[in-house]
């Protein structure tokens, strides 16, 4: 039975990995400007090998593709598809980590106010007519700042650590969401208000290389410790005293998890706007398919989240004449799939 189960998990992981690879590369071919698979392969390998050629001083082969094709693949589709994968993986990892930490499967990455803070930061940036970088940075800093504030409030509170953190997160989150409403109220209704509204709905429509680079560093910095410590996240689901008795420094572990999850949430929200649902539900899918052990759950959530957001973003850019905001689509696409999984039973039924 043991062998069957671990083999089953391994097989599921392979299927998921292959599905991600297929979806990822297929996304380059989809769009108004048709790209042949052969051209995609040649352009991507040419771009990937460029640094190696430069290092060895080799001459590049004469391109057999047009400049437009190269530009569509490398400058338009690559940043967008890669960013969808990064944001999907990041929000799922953050959601799964927060769920373990708060011992509650109904928790999403915005529980401590990261999304509300980032939303306010972006709205403020748009109101003050910041440039692209200013808006993104402001969103990121306010996202991190909101969680830091919630953490500080919970530290001075005399209540139970987990409960006070949730309450502080709700209070800080609602404070920033009220702040966003206030910014909307005073914003110019001709251009600023629509810009804020669209930003908050979440989209990758304007994704460029700079967004990818902006998000990638904090996401990597936050994800690596989470992956390294992922088996230890299991202990936080047990409760304070039980975890301590097993030799865990809960205060330190919790601080690391919050810091990392917040970093990747704020970075994702800063480049993509508010995309709800993923951080809450993708870890659930992963639990159904891979069980609750974070050793499997965290990588599985990330792979699943990346695949899901790439698919949904393809729908967002291809389904209608104008782009559909992701915040809306994630629920439209995800809810029926989730209901199907709930009805089917998933992993828990087999136990």
């Amino acid at each position, binding site marked *: *039975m*043991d062998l069957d*189960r671990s083999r089953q998990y391994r097989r599921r992981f392979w299927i998921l990995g292959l599905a991600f690879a297929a979806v990822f590369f297929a996304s380059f071919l989809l769009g108004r400007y048709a790209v042949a698979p052969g051209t995609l392969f040649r352009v991507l390998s040419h771009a990937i090998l460029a640094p190696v050629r430069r290092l060895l001083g080799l001459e590049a082969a004469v391109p057999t593709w047009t400049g437009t094709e190269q530009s569509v693949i490398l400058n338009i589709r690559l940043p967008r598809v890669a960013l969808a994968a990064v944001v999907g993986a990041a929000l799922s990892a953050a959601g799964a980590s927060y769920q*373990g930490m708060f*011992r*509650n*499967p109904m928790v999403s990455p915005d529980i401590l106010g990261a999304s509300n803070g980032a939303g306010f930061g972006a709205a403020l940036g748009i109101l003050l007519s910041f440039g692209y970088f200013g808006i993104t940075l402001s969103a990121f800093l306010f996202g991190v700042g909101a969680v830091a504030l919630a953490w500080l409030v919970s530290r001075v509170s005399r209540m139970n650590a987990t409960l006070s953190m949730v309450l502080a997160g709700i209070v800080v989150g609602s404070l920033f969401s009220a702040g966003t409403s206030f910014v909307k109220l005073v914003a110019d209704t001709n251009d600023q208000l629509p810009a804020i509204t669209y930003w908050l709905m979440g989209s990758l429509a304007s994704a460029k290389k700079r967004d990818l680079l902006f998000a990638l560093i904090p996401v990597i910095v936050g994800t690596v410790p989470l992956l*390294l*410590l*992922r*088996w*230890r996240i*299991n*202990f936080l*689901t*047990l*409760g304070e*005293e*039980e975890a*301590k*008795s*097993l*030799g*865990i*420094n809960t205060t330190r572990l919790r601080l690391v998890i919050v810091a990392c999850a917040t970093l990747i949430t704020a970075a994702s929200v800063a480049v993509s706007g508010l995309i709800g649902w993923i951080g809450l539900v993708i870890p659930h899918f992963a*639990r159904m398919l891979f*069980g*609750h*052990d974070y*050793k499997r759950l965290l990588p599985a959530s990330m792979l699943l989240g990346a695949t899901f957001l790439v698919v949904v973003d393809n729908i967002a850019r291809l389904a209608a004449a104008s782009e559909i905001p992701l915040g809306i689509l994630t629920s439209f696409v995800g809810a029926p799939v989730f209901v199907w999984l709930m009805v089917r039973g998933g992993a*828990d039924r087999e*136990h």
Partner: protein
Amino acid sequence: MSIEISALSFAYGETPVLRGIDFTVPDGESAAVLGPNGVGKSTLFRCLLGFLDPSEGSVRVNGKDMRSLDRRAAAREIAYIPQSCVPSFNYTLLEVVLMGLNNRMGLLESPKAEHKKAALEALDSLGIAHLAYRGSGKVSGGERQLALLARAMVQNARVLVMDEPTANLDCGNSARVMERVMNLTREGYTVIFSTHDPNQAFRYAHRVLAMQGGKVLSAGPPETALTARTLTQLYGVPMAVCPVTVEGRTFPVSVTLGGE
């Protein structure tokens, strides 16, 4: 002595909870802590596990002062078995037991095949190896408690602290769990548990600590420490202790005689 509590006092801010507790448990014995709710049993256990620092006095486990140990070192001396409750996440029993191996692993290490083998052996020794891949939400409260016992065994600590180990169990499961615990004491484990049932103390404890108002009301072997008078004083209702002989063995049983 596995557990040495001497002149232990503890206060939450200005509110004293424990006042001058003296109690020892030798190697391979089990001890029951009795007393009404709020008497300080949990606080005593928290001091024992090193979660709280005593205001006065000291707590030594296997001769080591709990204040001087970090969490990982403490986990090698003393294990904690909480009350049985349905967990937030449906971990398999094997995954539950594997968590007991944390103090034997590196900081970034996660369970390997050898750890899995140790965990399965512990489950097997308690007779629940067949449930290893069952979710902890899908087994009985008694089986869940046995899994926690297996987790404490792989932790390699020889002193077990059990907070009302049979609180949510029916009497069959309760007896099964306590019999396993007694087997562990015969293997050299030292056990201290809290209970609301004097009969459990008579049946399964070598020593008893009866607490009232944060102080020791009586301590010693159950037959001498838990008299009708002590029990009446402890629970505030008239109680009697009568010897019962079953299959040639005589042991005391307590009964309540009704309140006012």
